[in-house]
Structure formats: structure tokens, C-alpha cells
């Protein structure tokens, strides 16, 4: 993963950690975030 992609992913992955009502991400949510930054293929397949 390039640093550019990592930064793009970090910006949509981490800010919710400061939500007092945070819940763990579901595999559907993770897939959606990976899709949003173009992480595709078997390596990034989270099982759905």
C-alpha cells in the first residue's frame, strides 16, 4: 500500500475511535472502506 493510499484510508478509518459510542467495524464496513480507497484483490478480501 502506498503512503498516499494509507493516508486516505487512515482518514476514513480512525476518526470514529473518538466517538463515545464506537463499535467495532463490521466486515461490511471494512470492505466498504477498502473499496473507497481502491484496495482490492484476494489480499484485501475480508470474507464477504
Amino acid at each position, binding site marked *: *500500500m502506498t503512503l498516499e493510499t494509507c493516508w486516505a484510508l487512515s482518514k476514513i478509518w480512525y476518526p470514529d475511535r473518538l466517538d463515545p459510542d464506537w463499535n467495532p467495524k463490521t466486515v461490511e464496513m471494512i470492505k466498504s472502506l477498502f473499496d473507497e480507497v481502491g484496495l482490492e484483490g484476494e489480499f484485501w478480501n475480508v470474507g464477504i
Partner: protein
Amino acid sequence: MLSQTDRKIRFFIYRHFIDTAEAPTSTIIAEQMKITETEVGVSLRHLESKHALALKPDSLNIWMAHPFSAIPTPFPVKTSDHIYYANCAWDALGIPALLGVNSETETTCLDCGTTMTFGVQGGQLSGSNGVIHFSVPPRNFWDDVGFT
């Protein structure tokens, strides 16, 4: 599903990391939450089971609350207020993403040994170009999160 106690403890842990760059102990959490250390322990174990944090092996000491590490790592994240430690290169960008601050991380390329400096300035990636190598696919991140 996280309980109300889990949520309060998890949120307190993050606030503590942000304010001090360190993880709180079970004693500090118990004092601040006004609950027993036994209750804290139960909640920490539950939070770990839900991948909300990681504990040091065979203990109730917090190891990771991603993107923060409670122990020094090769990924220090310098901000205007603190030097945090990130668990990995991804988390070195996760910290400025979480906090909305500028950052700089100096580390060493594990492939060629070159010193790399990267971070965030004004919301934009700054410093070295680079590629992050993942040894473990995301579906297996938590099989052995320390190795990941």
C-alpha cells in the same frame, strides 16, 4: 456488543492516550471510573475480545489501543504536544488522522535500511514517498496482532 462500562472505559483509555501519550493502568481506570479493578479487568478482557484494544500477554496492561501503542515502537509520531508511539506504519498516519494534527515520523525502511521521514502537514501527506508492506492479510490481523 459493548456494555456502557466498556464504552466509558474505552473512551477514557483513548482520552488518556491523547492527553499523556501513555496507557492508563487498571488502577487509574478504576479510580477515574469509580469501579473496582476487578470490574475494570472484566471490561478490558471484553474490549480485547471485541478487538477494541490489545492487552500485553497474560496481563491486564494495555498494549495497544489502535493507533496508539503503550510501548515504544519504531514508529514515533511527533506532534506539537507529544511523541506518541504507533503500532505500525499505518498507525503512524492513523494518529494524525485521529487527532487532526500535524505529525512527523522518522523510521527506517525494513527493506533497504534507509531512514524515512513522513507525516502530515495541513491535512496533506508530507515527507518521503514509500510503500507499506503488510505480512498478514486484514482478515487475519487479529490472529496474532503483535506480529501483524
